[in-house]
């Protein structure tokens, strides 16, 4: 693919480096998320030691929540409700992108270096990831120059307005998270109700569904049957839904399918920050599409989902 940028900037290489940095470096810091008029902050720590990875996220404000990760196991704790949810780390986030991941992104986006800035006291490259069509949002990314660690990501709307932003306001690269601060909480769960929602991979067509034509740039990266868990791990009415996840190399769309229930289901569309959602009835089925993409793209996913003719 021809790259019109200045020869010094290799987009594929830069993207690969950024993808790998989050997994391979140790760091601690505070991250602020703004979007949909809401501001939340989290204390984040990540330790990479040989093949071991440890991570800890504490959300400040709102209802307490802590997340711990050791390699491929993730624990979310809700101290107020005393609920502990164990889940496998999602594959799509786990592995650093291989070069082919970077190439996929370049199919749908153009990547350009647009500047250098200091952020949270560190030097960063600023890169603009511009979509090649109107099916997805642009992003502006700040990556620390030495490590490639992504320090800030802004999702931009069609007029360049910031739809949402995640940014480190302070970052200590190389700072080590104590291993016990992750393993301890993962082991000591006295008084907690422990929940282990299950999911199993399935074939979309075996479940009776197909996508007519594709949605440009997006490919399915996973399809599973899983229980939808209430966010705070509350009630026990975890329903089984089919979740098919699509990616364009940068962002994701989830398509959920479950049996229609007229007591609960109401068609609607919502928009919050960069996230758009559509819920609609399709005969005996209820379809929900969630994506960090424009509403039109979410609608295309819903339209193109078809029941297979037997």
């Amino acid at each position, binding site marked *: 693919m021809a790259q019109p940028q200045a020869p010094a900037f290799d987009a594929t290489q830069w993207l690969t480096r950024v993808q790998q940095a*989050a997994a391979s470096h140790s*760091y601690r810091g505070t*991250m*602020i998320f*703004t*979007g*949909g*008029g*809401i*501001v*939340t*902050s*989290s204390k984040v720590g990540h330790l990479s030691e040989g093949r071991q990875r440890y991570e800890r996220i504490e*959300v400040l*404000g*709102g209802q307490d929540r802590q*997340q711990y990760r050791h390699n491929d196991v993730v624990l979310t704790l809700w101290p107020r409700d005393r609920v502990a949810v164990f889940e496998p780390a999602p594959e*799509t*986030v786990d592995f650093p992108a291989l070069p082919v991941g970077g190439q996929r992104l370049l199919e749908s986006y153009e990547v350009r270096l*647009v500047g250098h*800035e200091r952020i*949270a006291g560190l030097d960063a490259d600023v890169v603009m990831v511009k979509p090649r069509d109107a*099916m997805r*949002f642009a*992003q502006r*990314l700040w990556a620390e120059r030495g490590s490639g*660690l*992504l320090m*800030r*990501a802004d999702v931009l709307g069609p007029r360049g*307005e*910031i739809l949402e932003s*995640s940014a480190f306001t*302070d970052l200590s690269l190389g700072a080590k998270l104590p291993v016990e601060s992750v393993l301890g909480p993962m082991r000591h769960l006295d008084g907690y109700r422990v929940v282990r929602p299950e999911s199993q991979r399935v074939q979309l067509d075996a479940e009776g569904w197909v996508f007519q034509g594709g949605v440009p740039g997006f490919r399915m990266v996973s399809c599973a049957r899983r229980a939808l868990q*209430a*966010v*705070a791990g509350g009630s026990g009415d975890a329903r089984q839904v089919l979740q098919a*996840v699509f*990616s364009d190399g*940068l*962002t994701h769309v989830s398509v959920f399918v479950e049996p229609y229930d*007229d007591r609960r289901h*109401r*068609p609607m*569309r*919502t*928009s*919050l*920050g960069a*996230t758009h*959602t559509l819920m609609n*009835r*399709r005969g005996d089925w209820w379809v929900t599409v969630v*994506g*960090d993409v*424009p*509403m039109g793209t979410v*609608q295309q996913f819903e339209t193109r989902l*078809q029941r*297979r003719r037997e």
Partner: protein
Amino acid sequence: MSKPMDETQDTARMALSALMDGEAAAGEVESACARWRDAVDARERWHAYHLIGDVLRSEELASSPERDARFLAGMRERLATEAVPLVQRSAATRPALRWQTASVAAAAGFLAVAGVLVAMRSGGDATGQPAGGAVLASASQPEVMTASGKLIRDAQLDRYFSAHRRVSNGASVMVPGAVVRSVDTMAIDEK
């Protein structure tokens, strides 16, 4: 594959803009209103324009990287020296959805557009679709409704968001630690 939003959208958008700014000619007002009635996207945008109009009056608020970097540097210093309550909600307070916090954030120059949670309910079009048949976008346009944490919980949207977040880690796959995002928090807080 054709782009979903092209000329019609642009024309509609410009007409709405003109209407918003009080610059539309008489004929334009009528057609903009007609478009508004019929096109849910136009209504959504109208709603959004109104809600964020005040905040976005100035071109300045369209952030420049330098400005944001300065803000972040300032924010970092503040965080180091004082306990800044970034999430200003208690269980008793219903978040005046996005608007007030948007003003706070935007006033700091950090956000150009806060975005708005808009739920559109499909008007009575709950009839089943022909099994296996091709289904195109519904002809009946849903109304624009202001949503709330309650709506999210009633529709159990938080569960879908949460399941989506698990695999997507936010709109950018590369952001470390940005697992927890707004809607999860918002849905939880409104108890």
